[in-house]
């Protein structure tokens, strides 16, 4: 029996990340991302997922949108799609196009909808189709708090194949979350629930929702103090995003960038909210450098989600012995036994970072915790 699969790519998803923007929501941000030299990556990630499908030899009709919203990714994966939606301004698509495309797929009668994007994209999809059709989501966005996404593009492809092979996959509701921008403006990292999508019920392949760490403030402050007190003079520290890291900044006496990356030396802020290019400059000039990151709560991503500024090149320039991972014990517990994850665009680096890594959990306290490269997960 022929299955009909719909494909929607949000071509601008993820562009903000490598240039230090907090997402790619809004026209102004997209313009700035392009000015800063951001390269679109959602199409390539969608194509990586589709390659798994193309190689599986299944009887599939692929319906998609014209151009960068799907057609090009399908062709890259050597699949010939049918076009059911054409954006009005192909070079400048918007969230409205995503919603219209999703409705067009539903009208066409797709059995399964594949989309590539971030939290903003997931919000558009849930708004358009709700739980009417199961989805497989390819992670391509800057922020991924939503629990609907596969752990990486290839896992999305595997999931897609597994669902189509089985014919009647069990699905479950998964949260579509996004950063609450009102809260961020108030300096809090809070997420808001925007709805549920139906995803294949396969815990190995679908990311767990990002949980806000519930640890006591005092515990997190003690952890931050321990890290701040251990900083060595003359060393350049790259501080990643998140509330755990911002507590370190506060301990040092400045307000860290909640969703951005800051550079610190000798206890003082050197540069705030910087992108990959500036990070490479700072690391290049530094006598020694360290990267301080915390995993995304509930998901465990150390690199590759929400901190793309700290790119593979930045990590390589720093040296991966220079990576300091910090998390409260409660935050590790919220991973429910899953390993920490790295998903940079550099597969060799992902492999090198895998294994066991000491996670600073408090003053004089570390956990020896596994790190996996999502590809190894399966």
């Amino acid at each position, binding site marked *: 029996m022929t299955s009909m699969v719909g494909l929607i790519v949000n071509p601008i998803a993820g562009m903000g990340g490598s240039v230090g923007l907090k997402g790619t929501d809004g026209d102004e941000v997209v313009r700035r991302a392009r000015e800063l030299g951001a390269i679109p990556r959602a199409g390539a990630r969608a194509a990586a997922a589709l390659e798994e499908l193309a190689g599986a030899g299944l009887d599939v009709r692929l319906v998609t949108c014209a151009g960068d919203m799907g057609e090009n990714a399908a062709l890259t994966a050597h699949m010939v799609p049918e076009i059911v939606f054409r954006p009005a301004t192909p070079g400048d698509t918007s969230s409205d196009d995503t919603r219209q495309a999703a409705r067009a797929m539903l009208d066409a009668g797709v059995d399964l909808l594949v989309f590539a994007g971030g939290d903003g994209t997931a919000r558009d999809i849930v708004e358009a189709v709700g739980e009417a059709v199961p989805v497989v989501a390819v992670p391509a966005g800057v922020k991924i708090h939503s629990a609907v996404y596969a752990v990486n593009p290839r896992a999305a492809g595997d999931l897609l194949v597994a669902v189509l092979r089985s014919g009647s996959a069990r699905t479950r509701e998964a949260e579509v979350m996004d950063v609450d921008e009102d809260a961020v403006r108030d300096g809090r990292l809070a997420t808001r629930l925007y709805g549920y999508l139906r995803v294949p019920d396969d815990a190995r392949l679908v990311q767990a929702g990002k949980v806000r760490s519930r640890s*006591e*403030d*005092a*515990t997190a*402050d*003690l952890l931050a103090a321990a890290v701040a007190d251990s900083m060595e003079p003359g060393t350049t520290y790259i501080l990643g995003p998140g509330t755990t890291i911002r507590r370190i900044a506060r301990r040092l006496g400045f307000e860290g960038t909640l969703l951005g990356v800051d550079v610190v030396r000798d206890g003082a802020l050197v540069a705030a909210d910087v992108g990959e290019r500036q990070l490479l400059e700072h690391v290049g000039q530094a006598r020694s450098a360290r990267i301080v990151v915390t995993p995304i709560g509930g998901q465990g991503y150390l690199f590759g989600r929400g901190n793309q500024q700290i790119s593979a090149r930045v990590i390589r320039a720093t040296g991966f012995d220079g990576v300091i991972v910090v998390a*409260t*014990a*409660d935050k*590790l*517990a919220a991973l*429910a*036994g899953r390993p920490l994850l790295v998903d940079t665009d550099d597969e060799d680096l992902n492999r090198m970072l895998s*294994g*066991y890594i*000491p996670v600073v*959990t408090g003053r*004089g*306290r*570390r*956990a*020896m*915790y*596994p790190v996996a490269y999502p590809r190894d997960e399966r």
Partner: protein
Amino acid sequence: MTARRRQGQLRERFHQAAWQEPLVIHTGQPGRRGMLLPDAGPEIRAAAGDVLSPVPNSLRRAEPPGLPELSQPEVVRHYTRLSQMVLANNVSTSLGLGTTTMKYNPVVNELLSRSPKLTELHPDQDESTMQGILELLYRFSAILAEVSGMERFTFQPAGGSQGILANALMMRAYHASRGEAEQRDEVITTIFSHPANAAAPATIGYKVITLYPGPDGIPELDALRAAAGPRTAGLMMTNPEDTGIFNPRVAEYVEVVHAAGGLCAYDQANANSILGVTRARDAGFDMCQFNLHKTFGVPHGCMGGAVGATGVQPALVPFLPSPTVEFDGTRYYLDADRPLSVGAVRSGLGNIGSTLKAYAWVCAMGAEGLRDAAHMAVLNNNYLLQKVLAIPGASLSFAATNPTRRLEQARYSWEQMAAETGIHTTSVHDRMIDYGVQGYFSSHHPWLVPEPFTLEPTESTSQEELDEFAAVLGRVVDEAHQNPGIFASAPHNSTAGAPVRQGFKPAMTWQAFEAIRDTAGT
């Protein structure tokens, strides 16, 4: 013929006494006395003189102490009422307190420990007048050496954590004797070991590395290999862990740490599944400790104090706390002249009354009896386990990935039940008290197992008690589905209301306390 209680019968109309009893200091009247002593009479007065005159003025109170002034019946009633408001081990079954080993504590042993022969003993009196208790300590050390495979034991530590601390101190002293104390500044433990295995070494300045469980619930050997090295002072861990899972490869863990130059301490606080079955030495451990107030039939806490009996292999005997009890063939004596010793970790001979009770318990049980106790504890736990897992929404941690038998305890989860009903493990705890059983233990922190509860029936619960306890949990889960509102203000039939008021956040650190104090302005 008397009718027996049916198996699993609930106490539907349980209601505990609630006396609204004030603090004793707020009761009584000035001048009221519980005992009126007769006048000494002129002869005695003349012979005794002014008995207070030798007390220097600096030690005398200007005002008499503000003690409560009550009659004897008032005192008896006050404390009897308080005792009625407690769900103690002698009143209700406490098989829900996993990791804590709340077994029956034979009442007859109270008679021994309350004998004036013991209560009138002073640790500094001449050794020739305390040969009996020294002999008991010496013999008990030999018994525990047999049980554990260790060489010698000390009974000085006044609790499990202090026993672990003694082991950490000996670890440090051992490395100091080899000139490696500075270099070896890290202790490795596991997240499902008792938290004292992290806290005690941290107290004396060790950095602590914690291993997390792998998919089967057992800490991963590769993680240990990644953690062990030239900075490793030692490994401090429990087995079986809080999950009730016994780590069958523990000897390999010991090998990894020994190869790195570290020592290994086995926390056998709760040895209730392994008495007479497996020994610390057989796994290669250098030291271990038993909590006499858990495994060895001694009450916990207020009825006499705890003992963390701590034992070591021959090479570590010189480091044991001082004084040790020695025997020269004719007499027993205390030896404090031990230059490598970590010194005293507790004054005197420790909580000697509890040590005596444990000795009496072991003598009553005998070697076979110790092993029978372990077998019965495991059997009881697995009987209860089947009953609990028959309750909808209950699950056993790591059940899918580790089907091995749980030993004397098991860590369960209400994750599914909580997802279906919105009733959490803490609420189940508060409601089950309404059926006359003690609330259960959830888990040490952090909660790696969601919605956790940990049960440990020990060898001294009957089948009917196990059935009753499982029936209480089953009833409470029914209520979670049918009548979730009842949890909001539970317990209803117990003395207390919800034990922690809404929004109450205890200060867990000094900084947190200061923050609360500063906010409160007090």
